[in-house]
Structures are given as structure tokens and as C-alpha cells.
């Protein structure tokens, strides 16, 4: 080992500049991987943060089917289950509050102060959340009505001495208007002290670990609940948000693997060029008794040392880069910088491994050096058959992933084959393909570039043709950053479109429990900014919900709409039935859709009759679909309209307004969904709509703002992750600089001859620049092809494992910017060497021989 160590350190120490460049490339790779890992963790944490704020962390809830309160002993049952991470109760009851001369009857929410923060993130404008009895947190409208601020003591009047509660926090104003139902949060015992009925539970929220599927948990546990109680997925689970988040994380992990492989290739190119340059030196060592193993091990040690240096510099640099991004995007990344220790360790180890992997081929090649190579300078050209062989192997490697996609159905298998085989082979394949591509690029564009750079065409094309492997591998290193950029933006834009589209719901809502005016539709349709409306009516019907054993019939809500505009505006999730036949049947009349919760509670499905009574008269309709509406769930959480809707949804059926009018003689409208024109802003729209109903008490809400918040996080994530691709290009530029320096070094005598026969210094500089540009162009071709193939592969991946269909389209703007970026970076990397070459005297260049 000692001889190999001495050879390795001598090689590194003797060329400090080149060693620095290569170590710099590895450091950048380490920083890239670390920054990606920290970026993924930070974005994930922020997304979780946003979701927590929006919908809470609970995955499932226990509730009474009719929305009534239930026995507090059920809390103990839920807590006895081993799966949940947290089980939090919620009680409710009226809570009159007095402060000075103001009085408000708030809707009290009784919570467990220790558990509530674990499951719900209440965004506070001031103060803190309730921690003990004697404290109250006011919703902003309650605080406004009472003119209360943090620190004030409010009274809860009762028979005898009032209960005194200190205001410890005020919740943030929600971004949209909502029902004027002032809320106040207190400890459960506090609410019960005022109203003994408030001991009964309204809901029990349950947080499950990621490994537990909510649907499987519900199936396993719902049988343990007494009749009348259901275990249902929350809006978070039903919207598939956890799933989408997981898929997003998978995507970023894949990109990290790409970055790691890119680093290996850059090291491989740099060290291979170094071996070629040092062939004479290696041959001398063979002449004086160095054996193949010593030379090979020395090369491997060079790789390991370079990797280690890169890790030491690059990992802290990566954390710093991620930290800077977290500061720059602090509004969109509220969770701040997250540093996952495991990934940091992987990045460091990965650097050393990539150094080792990158040195493997050069080590083998160095060990094959013949001693006689020291004694003669024979130019060895790469044969056409070798280039064809590289093309063949490259194409075969690239074809592996499409073959996998064609024959494998299982989602898990698709994922693991992609990560372990398909993606790495794709990268290897395009890397090898870079060699024939540079040859073709030189043939096609070489004469053009030569003219542009005022060079003899044969000089430029000859330089590339003389060393196609070195130039091709350099292009291969450069293309990775562009491929990363293309795949990030292609899938990212498709993901955002699919994800947001998947939870589409109308732009705005108008609601009035007492009923909207008869001309509500016309008032809205008169507004230029309204493109489409869908009126919804609701009536209470009686249904023998719990069957013959029921003590009494329960009310259900019949929710009626015009099928055509409704289905245009709302995407429903079809649990049973299909969106083709159900709307037609609804329009014909005598048909209903039921909410998923209803079907679960009653065990009914498509084709079953739904009997009910309205004003004492019996009716029966056919169930033509069982649906969920994830978007409406989210809308409900934002401005409570949905809360009421959801409360209804537990026992709601959906039918047509035709039936409502013809069978029930009721044409009152309580709710109108609105699609707005694209070019009108929310505030103007809401004000205009409210003004249209000026003489009526209505609530107007915006659905766009919800979408905008979710999209904003996604778009920011895209920008943050793109910086990873830019870093990959910079990394490759380091590699290019190293290879250009090595190439110039290896050809010093040749350049000396050129100078001796009349070429000027600037001519040599232009030659280097033109060669570099040819490499960048080849990298552009290969990187674009690989980026788009990777995007197509990820489309199949997400379809297989997440059921998400992404609409993949080439992103011309991203590709154009990417080409410009790699050309600029490559030229910038080569410029110092080109200028130094131009300034070197012919005598110095010629002295390089021997």
C-alpha cells in the first residue's frame, strides 16, 4: 500500500491546480447532494407545515353520523388502539363572553391543550394557544366583536359568580370571509364547567404514522365502534395530500441519485484524461519496476483522496446553500432549514464512493500501460468500430427503462427497478452516447463554428476527431445538469397542473342558510366577471337511516344542483358509478348520488333504492353513484361553508334541481358555486359579488386563494430545486475546466508545433473556445434527450405507484435557457486556460516534449 500511496500523493501534489479543480468538482457534487437533501427536507417540512395549518394533521376522525355528540368513553377506546400517534378530543357548546360593555355568544371549542397543538396548527396573530384552564383563545372576529386583546380577562356569565378567562391568544384572520360564527377555544374541562352537556364529544381526531394506511386502519377498527359512530378519513387523507407529498419526495430522491451519478462521471472523465496525459509517466514507473497492482491502487487512492477532500469542503457548503435558499424563500418555506443527518452522511460517503467509482476505469486503464509506451510517442486514434461500440452499448443501456415500463405493472417494482437499474443505466447510456454525438456534432457543425471562430475547419474537426472519447465524456459530464433542469421543470410543471387540477373546485361561493334571493342566479349572471354559476338547493328529508332498530328517524339533507354545470365546475371522486352515466341519470330525475360516508354507514351502493320522506310524504330514488369531493373538503376547512356542508355530507344525498322543483315543490337556493373570469382579481370579485347582494345577508368566499396558496408552495419548490440543477451545471463546469487544462497540457507540444508554423496565440485560444463550444452543443443534444426521456420515465413511475397521470410536454423555454447556461459555463471554465495558452511562448510549448 505504501508504494501506491506515494505514487498517489505524488500525482496529486505535483499538479496542485488540477487536483484543486477536480476536488472542486467533487466538492460541488457533495454540496449539490447535501443541498438537495436539505432542500427536500425543508420543502417537505414546509409543505407539511402548510397542510397542518390548512387541514390539520389528523388522518382519521370518529364522529356521529348525524353530527350529534357522543359518549366521552369512546375517547378511551380510541386511546386503547396501538396504531395512533395521537388521539385528540373536541367538544363544543355555546360560550357567552363579556368584556367591558361588549358581549358575544361564541361557539366554544373544548380541546385538550396538550394534544391539540399536535394535531392542529392554529395560526395565531397574537399570543399563544390555550395551555390550561382559565385561558381562552379568541377567533379574530370574536376578538373584534369584544374589542379584546391578549391579556384581557373576559367573563363567562352563569348562575353565580362568572367564570373568568384570560385571553392568551387571538387567531389570525382567515384569508377569505366566512360564516360569521365567532369561535373561542378553551380547555375541555373549562367548557364543561359552563355547560355540562359540553362534556360529550363532537369529534375525536386521530393521527396515524406514515406507515399505516388510513383506509386499512378504518377497515380494521370501524367494527369496534358502537352503531351510529363512524370512523372516516379526514380531508388530508381523502385529498390524497400525503400521497402526493410522498411522490414529490420520491421525485426529488431520484434527482439526488442523478446528481450522485453525475459526480462519478465527472470524476471518471477527469481522471481518465489525467491517465491519458500521464501515460508516459506511468510507463516510466512500469519500466523501473512498478507493477500493475501498484499503479491501479494508486489511481484508486487518487479517486478516494479527491472524494474525501470534496466531502470535507462540499458538505458544509451544501448546508450553507440550502440555508441561504431557506432564508431567501422564508415566506414560502415557513419550516425553515432542515438538515437530515442521514442524508448528510450519505452525501459525504457518496463523495468518497463516487471518487472510487470514477477512478475505477482509469485505474484499470493505467494498469494496462505498457512500459514501452515510455519510449515512444505514438499518437493513438480511436477507431470507428470503438465509437460504434460505444453507441451500441449506450443505446442498449438507454432502452432498458422503456422495456421495464412496458413489461412491469407492479408499482413498487417499477419504482425499485427505476432507482436501481433504469435511471443509472439511462445516465450511463447517454454518457456513452456523448462520444458518437460529439463526432456527429463536429462533422455537422464543425465547419460552421470554424468559420465563426476564424479557424481552419480541419484544425477544429481534427482536434475533436483525434480525441473523441475525451471530448465526448466531457460533453457527457456537462449534459447532466441540463438533463436535471429539463426533468425537474417538465415533471414539476406537469405535477403542479395535475395536482392542482385534481383538487379543482369553483373559484368562489355565495351562501345563505336562510336562502338566497330568487334572482340570485340572475344577479350573478349580470356580472361581467362571472363566467358560470351552479345553484344548489338543500332541503331536509327524513330517512330510516339506522334501519328498523332505530329509535327515531334521522334527518338527511337532499342537496340539489343542475348536473351539467356542477360537473363542469367540481371534480368528484367516484367511489362507485361513473361520471358518464350518472349525470345523465340525474338529469332524467329519480336518481341520487350519495356521499361516501353515507354509503359506508348504510352499506348502500349503485343500483340500491334510497327511500326517504319529505314533509311526511314517502319517496324512493335510485342510487346511481357514490362520491367524494376532496376539493370541497378543503374549501370547507378554509371558510367553514364546507364545515356545514360536511356536517350535512355525513348524511347527504345529491340529486337534480329538477327533482327538487318537480317532486318537492322547492326551488329555494342556498348556495351558488361561481366560476370567475380569469383576468379578475379575488378582492374585486368578492366585493362585486357582495355588492350584488347588498340588501341580503350572504357569505361570499374565494376558492382561488386556496389553490393559490397550494400552488405557491409547489412553484417555490420548483425554483428551489432548480437551483440544484444549476449547481449540477456548475459542477460540470469544474469538470470541463479540469479536462480542458489536462487536454492543453497533453497537447502542449502539438500547440508548440502550431505556433512554430505560424499560428498566433489568439488562434490557439479560439481553437480551445471552439472545441469547448462543440462539447457544449453535444452536451445540449444529449442532455435534452435524456431530460425528456427521464420525464417520460417518471410519468410512468408516478402512474404506477401513485395513480397520478402527468401530462408531460417538452418545455422549450427551459431547454433554451439550459443550452445557453451550459454553453456560457463551459466557455467561462475554459477561458482562463485558453488565455494562458495564448500567452505561452512557442519555445515553452515545444519544450514540453520528453
Amino acid at each position, binding site marked *: 500500500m505504501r508504494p501506491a500511496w506515494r505514487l498517489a500523493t505524488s500525482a496529486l501534489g505535483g499538479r496542485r491546480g488540477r487536483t484543486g479543480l477536480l476536488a472542486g468538482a467533487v466538492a460541488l457534487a457533495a454540496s449539490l447532494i447535501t443541498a438537495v437533501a436539505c432542500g427536500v427536507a425543508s420543502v417537505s417540512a414546509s409543505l407539511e407545515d402548510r397542510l397542518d395549518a390548512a387541514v390539520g394533521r389528523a388522518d382519521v376522525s370518529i364522529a356521529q353520523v348525524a353530527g350529534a355528540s357522543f359518549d366521552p368513553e369512546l375517547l378511551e377506546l380510541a386511546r386503547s388502539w396501538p396504531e395512533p400517534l395521537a388521539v385528540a378530543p373536541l367538544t363544543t357548546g355555546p360560550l357567552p363572553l363579556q368584556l367591558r360593555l361588549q358581549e358575544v355568544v361564541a361557539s366554544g371549542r373544548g380541546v385538550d391543550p396538550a394534544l391539540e397543538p399536535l394535531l392542529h396548527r392554529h395560526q395565531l396573530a397574537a399570543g399563544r394557544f390555550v395551555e390550561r384552564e382559565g385561558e381562552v383563545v379568541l377567533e379574530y372576529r370574536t376578538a373584534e366583536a369584544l374589542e379584546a386583546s391578549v391579556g384581557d380577562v373576559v367573563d363567562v356569565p352563569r348562575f353565580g359568580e362568572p367564570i373568568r378567562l384570560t385571553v392568551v391568544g387571538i387567531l389570525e384572520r382567515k384569508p377569505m370571509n366566512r360564516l360569521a360564527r365567532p369561535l373561542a377555544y378553551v380547555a375541555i374541562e373549562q367548557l364543561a364547567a359552563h355547560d355540562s352537556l359540553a362534556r360529550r364529544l363532537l369529534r375525536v381526531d386521530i393521527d396515524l404514522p406514515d406507515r399505516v394506511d388510513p383506509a386499512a386502519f378504518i377497515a380494521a377498527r370501524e367494527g369496534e365502534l358502537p352503531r351510529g359512530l363512524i370512523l372516516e378519513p379526514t380531508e388530508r387523507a381523502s385529498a390524497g395530500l400525503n400521497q402526493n407529498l410522498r411522490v414529490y419526495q420520491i421525485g426529488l430522491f431520484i434527482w439526488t441519485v442523478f446528481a450522485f451519478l453525475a459526480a462519478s462521471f465527472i470524476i471518471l472523465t477527469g481522471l481518465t484524461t489525467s491517465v491519458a496525459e500521464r501515460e508516459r509517466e506511468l510507463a516510466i514507473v512500469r519500466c*523501473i519496476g512498478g507493477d500493475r497492482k501498484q499503479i491501479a491502487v494508486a489511481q484508486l487512492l487518487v479517486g478516494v483522496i479527491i472524494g474525501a477532500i470534496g466531502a470535507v469542503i462540499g458538505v458544509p457548503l451544501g448546508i450553507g446553500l440550502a440555508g441561504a435558499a431557506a432564508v431567501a424563500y422564508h415566506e414560502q418555506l415557513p419550516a425553515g432549514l432542515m438538515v437530515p443527518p442521514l442524508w448528510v452522511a450519505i452525501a459525504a460517503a457518496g463523495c468518497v464512493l463516487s471518487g472510487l467509482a470514477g477512478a475505477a476505469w482509469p485505474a484499470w486503464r493505467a494498469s494496462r500501460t505498457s512500459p514501452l509506451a515510455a519510449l515512444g510517442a505514438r499518437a493513438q486514434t480511436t477507431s470507428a468500430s470503438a465509437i460504434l461500440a460505444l453507441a451500441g452499448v449506450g443505446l442498449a443501456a438507454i432502452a432498458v427503462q422503456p422495456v421495464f415500463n412496458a413489461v412491469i405493472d407492479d408499482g413498487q417494482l417499477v419504482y425499485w427497478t427505476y432507482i436501481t437499474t433504469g435511471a443509472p443505466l439511462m445516465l450511463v447510456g447517454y454518457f456513452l452516447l456523448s462520444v458518437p454525438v460529439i463526432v456527429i456534432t463536429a462533422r455537422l457543425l464543425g465547419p460552421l463554428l470554424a468559420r465563426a471562430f476564424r479557424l481552419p475547419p480541419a484544425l477544429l474537426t481534427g482536434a475533436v476527431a483525434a480525441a473523441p472519447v475525451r471530448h465526448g465524456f466531457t460533453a457527457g459530464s456537462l449534459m447532466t445538469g441540463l438533463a436535471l433542469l429539463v426533468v425537474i421543470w417538465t415533471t414539476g410543471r406537469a405535477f403542479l397542473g395535475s395536482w392542482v387540477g385534481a383538487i379543482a373546485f369553483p373559484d368562489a361561493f355565495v351562501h345563505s342558510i336562510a336562502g338566497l334571493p330568487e334572482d340570485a342566479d340572475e344577479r350573478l349572471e349580470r356580472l361581467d366577471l362571472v363566467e358560470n354559476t351552479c345553484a344548489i338547493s338543500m332541503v331536509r328529508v327524513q330517512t330510516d337511516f339506522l334501519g328498523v332498530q332505530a329509535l327515531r328517524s334521522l334527518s338527511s339533507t337532499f342537496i340539489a344542483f343542475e348536473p351539467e354545470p356542477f360537473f363542469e365546475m367540481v371534480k368528484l371522486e367516484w367511489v362507485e358509478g361513473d361520471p358518464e352515466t350518472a349525470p345523465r341519470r340525474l338529469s332524467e330525475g329519480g336518481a341520487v348520488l350519495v356521499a361516501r360516508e353515507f354509503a359506508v354507514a348504510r352499506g348502500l351502493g349503485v343500483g340500491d333504492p334510497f327511500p326517504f320522506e319529505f314533509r311526511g310524504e314517502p319517496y324512493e330514488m335510485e342510487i346511481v353513484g357514490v362520491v367524494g369531493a376532496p376539493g370541497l373538503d378543503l374549501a370547507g376547512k378554509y371558510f367553514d361553508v364546507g364545515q356545514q356542508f360536511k356536517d350535512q355530507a355525513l348524511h347527504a344525498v345529491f340529486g337534480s334541481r329538477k327533482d327538487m322543483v318537480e317532486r318537492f315543490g322547492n326551488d329555494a337556493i342556498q348556495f351558488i358555486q361561481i366560476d370567475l373570469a380569469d383576468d379578475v382579481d379575488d378582492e374585486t370579485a368578492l366585493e362585486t359579488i357582495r355588492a350584488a347582494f347588498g340588501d341580503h345577508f350572504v357569505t361570499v368566499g374565494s376558492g382561488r386563494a386556496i389553490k393559490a396558496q397550494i400552488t405557491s408552495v409547489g412553484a417555490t419548490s420548483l425554483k428551489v430545486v432548480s437551483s440544484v440543477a444549476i449547481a449540477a451545471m456548475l459542477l460540470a463546469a469544474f469538470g470541463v475546466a479540469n479536462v480542458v487544462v489536462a487536454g492543453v497540457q497533453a497537447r502542449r507540444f502539438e500547440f508548440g508545433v502550431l505556433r512554430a508554423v505560424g499560428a498566433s496565440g489568439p488562434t490557439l485560444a479560439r481553437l480551445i473556445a471552439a472545441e469547448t463550444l462543440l462539447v457544449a452543443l453535444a452536451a445540449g443534444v444529449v442532455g435534452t434527450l435524456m431530460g425528456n426521456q427521464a420525464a417520460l420515465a417518471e410519468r410512468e413511475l408516478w402512474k404506477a405507484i401513485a395513480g397520478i397521470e402527468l401530462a408531460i410536454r417538452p418545455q422549450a423555454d427551459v431547454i433554451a435557457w439550459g443550452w445557453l447556461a451550459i454553453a456560457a459555463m463551459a466557455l467561462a471554465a475554459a477561458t482562463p486556460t485558453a488565455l494562458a495558452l495564448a500567452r505561452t511562448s512557442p519555445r515553452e510549448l515545444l519544450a514540453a516534449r520528453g
Partner: protein
Amino acid sequence: MIRCLDVHKAYRRRDRRTPALRGVDLEIDRPGFVAVMGPSGSGKSTLLHLLAALDRPDAGEVWVSGERIDQLDDASLTRFRRRGVGVVFQQFNLIPTMTARDNVKLPGVLAGERDRDLDDRASELLDALGVLPRAEHRPDALSGGEQQRVAIARALLFEPRVLLADEPTGALDSASSAALWTLLGSIAEGRDMTILMVTHEPAAAAHCREVFVLADGVVADHFDSGGLDAAGVATRYQRAGR
């Protein structure tokens, strides 16, 4: 010390076969300074490559320092090159990133020898060759003559019985060349070793004890050059060429 029996060697390039040695018979049975001369293409460099275990003959036997080397495997040839023979090249072939001292020590490092022992030995050799003051300089800071002396020091590290020199003064001026020939002669005599020098210069051969003349891949002549000057060697050489 050195013996070649009917040695043949040809080079193949694409479908062309170029014979370099066509049956060389040569024997050097005692220490001394010996020259191999011949015109360009005569096979002298090829002969030196075979003797230095850098290549294998197509046929025949090659013996160096009592060891038959034409049938050794790659690992054995490597070991032989490390300790069994020293080689000095026309282009010096020093490692450019190592100092003169480290270049001299390199064969010992490759053999796994202790650094302290190697340091002492390297200093001794560099001093004997008159370049100890330049020990910590890299090759690009040394003159041609100094570099060649460092190369000779490296070749002598393991005190081989045979030292092979391939046109060692090809890159030097005449004064340096003369000094080097004298030096090689004194090394051969003082250390009781055989130094075989490939050269095309009669002035170099004049410093040698005997001369082998190669022509068209065979030994065309062999004469005693002791007492001959450069002109005398040249005359005898030209006669062999006819």
C-alpha cells in the same frame, strides 16, 4: 552477464510484419563498458528493450545476470526490472512531479523498502554522481546532464549487475556527453558491473571496451575498441557496414 541465442523479434502493425531482429547471437561474459552500434533500423533499440525485460522475443533465448528472462511472466518481469537490471533512457524519463531524491528512491519505494534506508542510499548515489546539491529540485529545474545523472543514480539503486543505456547522451551537448561517457566507464570499472550502451556515436563507443555492430537485425561485427579513438572506431564501424 548477458547472453542472446538466436533471438528473433518482429513488430506487427495492422497486417504488416516488420522484422527487427533476425537471429541475434551475442555474449558478454565479464563486467565492463560495452557499446552496441548500428544504423537506424538495425534493431539495436529492440535488442535493448529485450535485455531490459521491457518486451519478449518471438524466438530465442535471452539471459541477463544469469537469469533467463525470455520466458518470465509479467509479474516476474516486473520484479526483474525492479532489481535485476538498471535502465537509462535517452529522454531521461524522470517523474516530473518528484524531486531528484524521490526519483532515485522510487524503485525502492515500489519494492516496499524502508524510507530511511532509501534516503541514505539515494544521498550516497547522488553524491557519487555529483548532483547531491540538486537533490530537492524537480527535473524541470535541472540541466540535461544533471537529469541524466539522476536517472543513472536511480538505475543504480539496487546495484544491478547489468545497466543498460539507450542513447544516454542523445539529448546532451558534446561536453556533457563526454563527461557522461567517462562517468559510465568509471562506474562499470568501479562497481564491477556490465554497462551496455546503445549508441550511434563513435566517440561514445571509443570509451568502451568492445563494440557489437548490428545491421539488418543481426550482429554484423564485434571488435575490441580498447585503445581506439573515435576515428578508429568510426573506420572499423564503416568497414563492418560494408
